[in-house]
């Protein structure tokens, strides 16, 4: 751990000012700290200026609002509070489940939704600075995972420069439900589709998001839609709790008389960014959920998937996870 300046921002403007003032000195916002502090201790992230934004929890940043138009989640809402919210559980189960199945209760109590979508990859080579080669940590240094131990790594959205998995769960629920994200920055506010927040690694895996310097996530907005009630998050992993996904699926299904009117699908554990499986959705529209249609959807979702050795199984596992999740969603009693 390196020395750094710690500052508590009493308001949004103060936070913004602090960051703007410190822009040259590598500033970082601090929410729950469960990503940032870990990576600082590991010497992976080395901000010189840490601006604690937890005081904003009392403002719109910390609120959960639900109405006819949709769901609004403040970026400083704790994972546990959103996961335990009865209305979210009932009307947006995929959101509640993606949070409930993530991390541990202690972490969920600490961790914020804003921090969650910005969590860094769990690639062990990224997290261990004694490995020289990591393009994400050290641009241009290479990628130790390509030919290394890559069982947990991605099979979709990879590049020759980085195959690190986006490890979060909540992000997949958001992208499935067409969420948008409200931002405020030194240059004012803007709203972007959540799908535009994360960047594919391509040849700049160190640039993970489209956030501008000093920009703060205020909230996430999930529009109300006919498919949100019949939704779920299925997470397949090496143990039953407290573990990242080997493969996961976020499903939201609008079906009538056994036919798919519309469906939203996102896949986790297998991709470098929150991953919307649009091709699989197209395959399913207008069809019944049965063994053939889910198999066709699964195949469509994994066209172009590429394993790197230890993670080859994720293609097959991802397909089976998607199939199982679709069947489970179709069978839900709501």
């Amino acid at each position, binding site marked *: 751990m390196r020395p750094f300046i710690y500052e508590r921002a009493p308001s949004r403007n103060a936070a913004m000012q602090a960051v703007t003032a410190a822009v040259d000195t590598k500033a970082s916002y601090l929410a729950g700290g469960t990503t940032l502090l870990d990576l600082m201790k590991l010497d992976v992230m080395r901000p010189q200026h840490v601006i604690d934004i937890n005081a904003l929890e009392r403002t719109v940043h910390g609120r959960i609002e639900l109405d006819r138009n949709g769901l609004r989640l403040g970026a400083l809402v704790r994972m546990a509070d959103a996961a335990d919210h009865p209305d979210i559980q009932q009307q947006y189960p995929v959101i509640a489940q993606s949070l409930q199945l993530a991390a541990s209760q202690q972490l969920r109590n600490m961790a914020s939704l804003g921090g969650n979508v910005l969590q860094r990859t769990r690639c062990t*080579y990224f997290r261990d600075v004694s490995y020289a080669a990591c393009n994400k940590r050290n641009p241009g240094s290479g990628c130790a995972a390509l030919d290394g131990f890559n069982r947990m790594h991605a099979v979709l959205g990879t590049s020759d420069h980085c195959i690190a998995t986006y490890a979060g769960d909540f992000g997949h629920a958001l992208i499935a439900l067409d969420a948008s994200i409200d931002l405020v920055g030194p240059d004012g506010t803007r709203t972007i589709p959540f799908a535009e927040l994360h960047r594919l690694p391509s040849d700049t895996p160190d640039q993970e998001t489209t956030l501008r310097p000093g920009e703060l996530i205020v909230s996430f907005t999930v529009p109300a839609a006919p498919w949100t009630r019949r939704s779920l998050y299925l997470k397949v992993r090496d143990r039953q709790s407290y573990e990242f996904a080997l493969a996961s699926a976020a499903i939201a299904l609008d079906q009538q008389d056994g036919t798919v009117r519309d469906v939203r699908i996102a896949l986790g554990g297998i991709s470098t960014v929150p991953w919307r499986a649009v091709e699989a959705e197209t395959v399913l529209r207008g069809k019944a959920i049965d063994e053939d249609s889910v198999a066709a959807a699964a195949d469509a979702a994994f066209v172009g998937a590429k394993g790197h050795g230890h993670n080859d199984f994720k293609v097959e*596992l991802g397909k089976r996870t998607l199939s199982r999740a679709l069947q489970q969603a179709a069978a839900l009693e709501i």
Partner: protein
Amino acid sequence: MASAAAPSPKANMGAPAPRYDARLKVTGEARYPADVAVANPAFAVLVTSSIAKGRIERLDLDQARAVPGVLDILTYENTGELKPAKFGQGSSTSIQDLGPDIFQDGQIIAVVLADTFEAATEAAQSVKATYAAQAPSATFGSQGLNSEDAAKVSQQHEHLPEAGDAETAIGGADVTIDGHYGTPTQHHNPIELFATTCEWTADRLTVYEPSQFVYGLRNGVAQRLGIAPEKVRVASHYVGGAFGSKGTMTPRTAMIALAAKRLNRPVKLVATRDQGFTIATYRAETRHHIRLGARRDGKLVGYAHEGWEISSRSDPYVVAGVEDSAQLYAFGAVKTKVNVVHADRNTPGYMRSPPVVPYIFALESAMDEMAEKLGMDPIEFRRVNDTMTSPIENKPYSSRSLMACYDRAAEAFGWKRRNRLPGSMRDGEWLVGYGCATAVYPTHIGPAAARVRLMPNGDVRVQIAAHEIGNGVYTVLGQMAAERLGVGLSSVKVEVGDTRLPPAPVAGGSNTTASSCSAVLKTCDAIRAKLFHASVTANDGPLAGRNVEELTLTDGKVAASDGTGENLADVFKRLGMSTIEEYSEFVPDGLEPDAVADLYAGKLTMTGGPHGKKVMYAMGAELVEVHVHSQTCEIRVPRIVGAFAAGRLMNTRTVHSQYMGGMIWGISSALHEATEIDTRYARYVNDNLADYMVPVNADVKDVQVILVPEVDHDVNPAGVKGLGELANVGTAAAVANAVYHATGKRIHQLPIRIEKLL
């Protein structure tokens, strides 16, 4: 009151007395070695190598030295005065230098000392090492390994089990099995990190370090520093988990002692979690080739087992579990061989049930395959081959209750419901499988010495340098003294874990209760003898002229069988003493008379298991239900039942806890645990508790422990068999066998992960 955690004692079992240290531990009152406050400590942080083989070309310390608060940095250039300690005689490894030659990933190359932990950490991160790296050999399958016959390089394993002509027997058998098996690297990962605090007072050194063998550590450190062992005290009153990793001296201890000497100030080190993977030991990966031959009726006629074990380049660490597996059934002819395979790795070491965990996984998997090939129920197959005589030299078992364990476990489990056909049982989307395997652990015993003091008011103090590693030794030794001296448990104060006390063996091989209880028992009996003698020889006392044989010591009284008694205080008065203190040394049958003298010098000899006139083993049966998802293949263990017999049980609560924890670890071995190695660099990849998988509560459902009564007068005076390392043996095979039963897929290589079943 009886509860699942504190079963009511049956025949030959002691009361489930609550652990003396339980409350202290949950309230934070128990002081682990790193908690011991020393005045004005400096803080040490280690720097470790990022290559596994090669040489340090340059160590750039400028930036590190410039960090405010940095006091000193140890490197290979200023630590030449440390003397080597031999591997196998107290030292965990021969790789003890800070360079410049690098023999393993994560070798300590610098120790940064600073006024604060933060400054030391920052400076350690600023040390820049440049290496001339060579391509290392990582593990099985790598280039450049060299393999040796264990019998040739390890004195301990010169004579591996052999009986009859196994080749001919197997060659001519009706039914044969020929299989290859493998187990992965595992790291102990005790919650308590590897910590050392050293403090000098003039020329005397005190080491606070979690240790499973304080006398071994004392003598090892003295040797490395070139000072007399008497100048060193090691204190380790609580150990926060060890599982073997704290049984031998690791290189860090002498470095911290030297640092404290150079600074003339106490120095405290708490190594990081990932450093724990390389600065201490681990369970090495193994490979096995097993052949079994049987008659059509299920009688085994031959067993051949060849094992391969990874070790470091420099040291022949080897567990050779065939010594135990060869005793397990009436095999007929037996042939065994073990190979040490040297790689560019840190030296492996003891980890809970070192020999039997990998070897019994392989054997018990093969046994299941044989049962299936014979069309027999796997429990019945074991019954047919049960024996009271070891196939090796035909030695008798001192006691053996394996089938009683199977029968009790099978009944509790509902084994009858098992449909023999693989893949035939289902629960909704989940495939259901039942599997079983045998747990076995050799009964070890070593020499020990104890000092016991009795006061007229019934207060007792027991002193013995045994080790509280979570085994309940404070409580169990207290129970033994309370029973022999006729006082309540609360009147007994037990002191352990300190070289100021008489020595006891390493807390390893599950010998602690047997050895230490035997020493305490002997010492208490010396006190009894003194009291009884005083009572019967006094002319004026109520027990004058009685026969010593008919006396007992209960409730603070010397009493005869007819009820006549004399209070302790009166006996003391007659003796003209305010305190009776006895010291005695216990040397088990089969060891040299100077075994305790050796122990004072940090040298330990043990006996038992297959080595005596009778073979001595604790045994058990484990039955497991697994569920495997029919599509996504997650593996769950909703239920496990284990029944165990291990001679006299001192305390049913601590025993229950050992068995339950053992089975949970067994599930972990089966499904979760493995240290992954980047074979290009011979480096550990998942060296943290987020990536090194162990089960969480959600993975452990119904764990049922059954205590099967057993009496064994041959094992040792206390009548106890070591059991701390029993219940994690066999579990992985039971799970693998159940996975086969559920899916029809045999997994020969642990851990069993989703990708192997897809």
